[in-house]
């Protein structure tokens, strides 16, 4: 588990249009670059590649300036869509963290270390399943320390619509708590 990486962490988020994948990636970038004083680069699928099918958002977070901006071997892959799982799951670096949305992705059983996160269900219970991306973010940062919880809260506060703020904060904390509890087991 790539917990508390120093130097550099590469993260790939995968899903389908409307799941807030790009927003989640941007939030990670904002949190790292603006509130944690780290370096961060964000790129995403673009153009025909992004239409239909799996979309992805890539983030590199580092203590040092980042030269090459693209994710090549992600330490973390989080997917909310089956096609994204098929496409990006196998790109995970050895020993990396794979998070799949439990109801939307049917992960192979041989992925022993996969985290099956009921993000949509948790978000639904909190009031809106569209916050599933934020639940995933919460879990991701709880499991990796890629950015601090505080930084992510600040990023959410500065970025999302005020109407969704409470929901997103609850979603973030729900995901984060799950990861911390899992880590303590």
């Amino acid at each position, binding site marked *: 588990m790539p917990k508390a990486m120093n130097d550099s962490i590469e993260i790939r988020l995968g899903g389908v249009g409307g799941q807030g994948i790009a927003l989640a990636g*941007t939030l990670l*970038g*904002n949190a790292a*670059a*603006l509130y944690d004083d780290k*370096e*961060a*680069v*964000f*790129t*995403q699928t*673009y*153009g*025909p*590649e992004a239409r239909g099918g799996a979309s992805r958002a890539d983030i590199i977070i580092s203590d040092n300036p*980042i*030269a*090459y*901006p*693209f994710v*090549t071997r992600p330490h973390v892959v989080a997917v909310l869509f089956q096609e994204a799982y098929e496409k990006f799951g196998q790109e995970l670096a050895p020993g990396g963290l794979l998070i799949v949305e439990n109801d939307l992705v049917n992960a192979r059983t041989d992925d022993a270390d996969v985290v099956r996160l009921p993000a949509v269900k948790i978000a639904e219970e909190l009031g809106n399943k569209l916050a599933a991306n934020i639940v995933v973010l919460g879990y991701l940062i709880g499991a990796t320390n890629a950015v601090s919880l505080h930084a992510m809260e600040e990023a959410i506060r500065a970025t999302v619509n005020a109407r969704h703020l409470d929901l997103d904060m609850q979603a973030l904390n729900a995901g984060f708590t799950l990861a911390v509890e899992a880590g303590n087991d």
Partner: protein
Amino acid sequence: MPPETAAKTVAPEAAQRVLTGRRFMLGDHACAEGALAAGLDFFAGYPITPSTEVAEHLASRLPAVGGRFVQMEDELGSIAAIIGASAAGARSFTATSGPGFSLMMENIGLAAMMEIPCVIVNVQRASPSTGLPTMVGQSDILQARWGSHGDYGIVAYCPSSPQECFDQTIDAFNTADRYRIPVFILMDEVVGHMAERVEIPAANEIPHVPRKRPRTKPEEGIFLSYAPDEDLVPPIAHAGEGYKVHMTGLTHDERGYPELTPETHDKLVNRLVDKVRLNALDIVDFDEQHVDDAECVVIAYGCTARSASAAVDQARAEGLRCGLLRPKTIWPFPEERVRRLLEIGKIKRFIVPEINLGQLRREVERLTQLPTIGLNHAGGAMPTPNAILEIIRS
């Protein structure tokens, strides 16, 4: 737009011209913010991937700070409109990519000939023709320098990060106004579509170089729009100020009137070229890493320079005497700096990685007469640090 609409659709902070503070933003958006910070008054453009985000961003931001945004019918119209607006005193700007840049070429020559400042960002994609619209290219380097018919001087910046997109867009406006020339920002799709931290200074810390303006009032006699000072740059009067200027793309005298003789033409065109050539030391901008004792120097720009920088650091860690020269102005090319480095006498070879088939390599070969190795890709992908490192090692 009427104020009540503006209040509804634009966030309160959007009415600020300079978004002072730290932001995490796309290169395309940083470029648009740089233009706003530089005092952009007028934008005319036609949507084209991968530059569209520049226009989209300005469509919401520019009217809110009192500027004017026009979506034109094509790039021929966009470039003509920004030249016209600039003739009326606007800091004006357009954003495009390869195919649109090609369409703008004729009027880029007009801006050079009329000496009307304007700024054009070209977010380069894989070309020629329609090529790979959504994928990276760096193949408009020579077109930027030589694309319009005839001889003329221009400046082209080449940012490697969203921060530089912001900073160099400001530089571009200042340089355009300072020398009365069209200025390009040669971004590329990678830099345009990646987000990174951008530090935006306070409004009063944004460098501002104004146009040289007439030193006489209209009633004090005929104003000569093309009578240069010692720096070869003439002051400019704007439409509506009473100077009764005449500007033409025809060969003209200092008054701006057509004078169709070989002598006038030769004198005028030489000045258009010389005002950039002879002021190059003031214009040129570059960055470097470990060049002083380098035996091998990588020359790279835009997104490619990012990989080159990582490769050079790694090579140094392996004990290889290698350095990086990163032209931030690709035109004029940092010729003088390269000459100095050659005088040190240690350099044995150059490596020029670029996403084209050797456009800048040709310039480096011409200047240095030393072995110059290209790492070339026609477009769609940028070289990795490892690919460059392997050439350094070889």
